[in-house]
């Protein structure tokens, strides 16, 4: 039992954790509630990933293949952990399929939920067909054609609104979702590549293309792809008489309110805590932090831990996270879990 690690969630973090466990010679049991592996990048049909530029299907697909082909990983799809008990070295989990899993450690790679744009009705999602989310734009890019959903025309002007469901005390989202600035700059490039006649505007409060994303995405989208960055948060979206959308904002440079016409508006949606988190917290006996993400055990000496010894976590379960950092955290959580099991075995 002490050489088995239960991994919950098969997104980038969970796939990475399971592969790390198995590659080190331990057994991994991977439980995924959906019937396909890959998590958000696959389920939401992301296009090219930041920062590699590889298609999500290929990059995450490679991770999936490694996991599915690995002799030391058993995968349970369409399954959830319903009951969980025990202590480090001997946990027992009952799955919704009726099966029981015995494991020495557990890694929660349970990820996030995309912000639902209907929670900001003034921005027109659900009211106007030509208001879509970044997930939908990713799918559009992956399909190879940029069009307005209302009538199929190629948009002349596209607006991407940042911080939809992030940095907004009005709706209790008091966090930065970290990835949307870079994702939006990347999408602006992809839109321009597919539809050179389309002009792309990004409306922002701050641009947070942190670290090495600055020149590769923020600058590149401006310098090479002529994306226009406008410092303004849009107040409302209405329809104009000619079927286009009207964005109401303030030109913060000339300090006057303005109305700007657009053909297509994209909400750069943030990362909410996984909707399942309250249930997960109860099942696994762990604590959530005040935003609703998983509580980290301790920042400096136990960064992969939760509030329950032997239960670890990684990736967006802890808060908004990039794909590449989620993968790194998955590997880190696996190392920590195996190290703790190793210590237990030596002591026992």
């Amino acid at each position, binding site marked *: 039992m002490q050489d088995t690690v239960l991994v919950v969630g098969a997104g980038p973090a969970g796939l990475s954790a399971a592969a790390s466990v198995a590659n080190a010679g331990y057994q991994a049991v991977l439980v995924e509630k959906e019937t396909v592996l890959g998590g958000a990048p696959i389920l939401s049909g992301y296009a090219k990933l930041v920062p590699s530029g590889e298609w999500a299907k290929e990059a995450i697909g490679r991770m999936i293949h490694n996991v599915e082909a690995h002799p030391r990983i058993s995968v349970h799809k369409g399954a959830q952990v319903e009951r969980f008990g025990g202590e480090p070295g001997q946990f027992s989990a009952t799955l919704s399929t009726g099966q029981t899993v015995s494991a020495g450690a557990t890694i929660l790679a349970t990820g996030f939920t995309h912000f639902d744009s209907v929670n900001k009705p003034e921005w027109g999602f659900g009211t106007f067909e030509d208001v879509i989310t970044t997930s939908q734009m990713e799918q559009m890019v992956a399909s190879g054609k940029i069009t307005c959903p209302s009538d199929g025309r190629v948009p002349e002007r596209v607006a991407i609104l940042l911080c939809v469901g992030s940095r907004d005390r*009005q709706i209790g989202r008091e966090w930065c979702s970290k990835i949307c600035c870079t994702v939006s700059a990347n999408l602006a490039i992809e839109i321009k590549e597919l539809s050179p006649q389309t002009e792309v505007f990004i409306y922002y409060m701050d641009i947070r293309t942190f670290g090495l994303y600055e020149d590769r995405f923020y600058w590149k989208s401006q310098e090479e792809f002529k994306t226009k960055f406008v410092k303004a948060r849009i*107040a409302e979206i209405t329809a104009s008489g000619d079927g286009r959308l009207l964005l109401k*904002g303030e030109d913060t440079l000339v300090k006057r309110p303005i109305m700007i016409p657009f053909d297509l508006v994209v909400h750069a949606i943030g990362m909410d805590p996984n909707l399942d988190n309250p249930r997960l917290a109860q099942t696994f006996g762990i604590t959530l932090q005040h935003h609703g993400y998983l509580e980290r055990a301790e920042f400096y000496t136990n960064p992969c831990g939760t509030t329950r010894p032997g239960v670890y976590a990684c990736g967006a379960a802890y808060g908004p996270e990039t794909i590449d950092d989620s993968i790194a955290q998955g590997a880190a959580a696996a190392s920590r879990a195996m190290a703790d099991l190793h210590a237990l075995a030596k002591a026992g």
Partner: protein
Amino acid sequence: MANYAKMQQIYADIRADFRYEHELYGCLNCGICTATCPSAQFYDYSPREIVQLLWTGNVEQIYDAMQEKIWACAQCMTCAARCPFKNSPGGLVAIMREIAIAHEMQSAKDVLRPFGRVMLKLITTGNQLSPDMIQPDHFPDWGPNIQKVEGNLRTLRKAIPVKTLQTVDTAWEVSLKTSVEMYTIWEMTGVLKSLQLMDENLFDVIEDFIDEKREEYEEWLEEQAE
């Protein structure tokens, strides 16, 4: 023009208001307040500018904004409903207006003077508008339609089949007890004091009215006791 010390005092008073910290958490200049502000569409007024101005601590510019700009706000509080920080620029304006009144700024007196008639009605009866206030002179923007309500107000009023609306000098029948209670509220919340600072004559008229009503109420109470 006020001297520098006076302007500093005004700024200090604004920040000392117990609501100040609650109305202003932080600001990233996103402009959503100004974008959504109905007054900003028509006037040289911007809620974002008010927030930023208070942060600069430039007491001359703040004093300048209190001359005219702050009175362009309609107090609809859409800015507060939209601000991602949950600031309330409209709430800051409310504080600035109260401070302008407390300091007896001439600009405040000038801006508030046209509201004397409404103030009289509001403070004495709790009604903002009554049928007898609808006079041709006061509503030039109504054009010739105003003639339709002139002259036979009582008859027109009777045509409205709701019992409480058979009055012409108030919008509804005002209870004496409620009025007297309301006067206590005006007094205790400092409304009457503000009024006195802005318009001494109007204040005298209103105070006489209030005294009369209070006497009337006392008499009524005595009658009931007998």
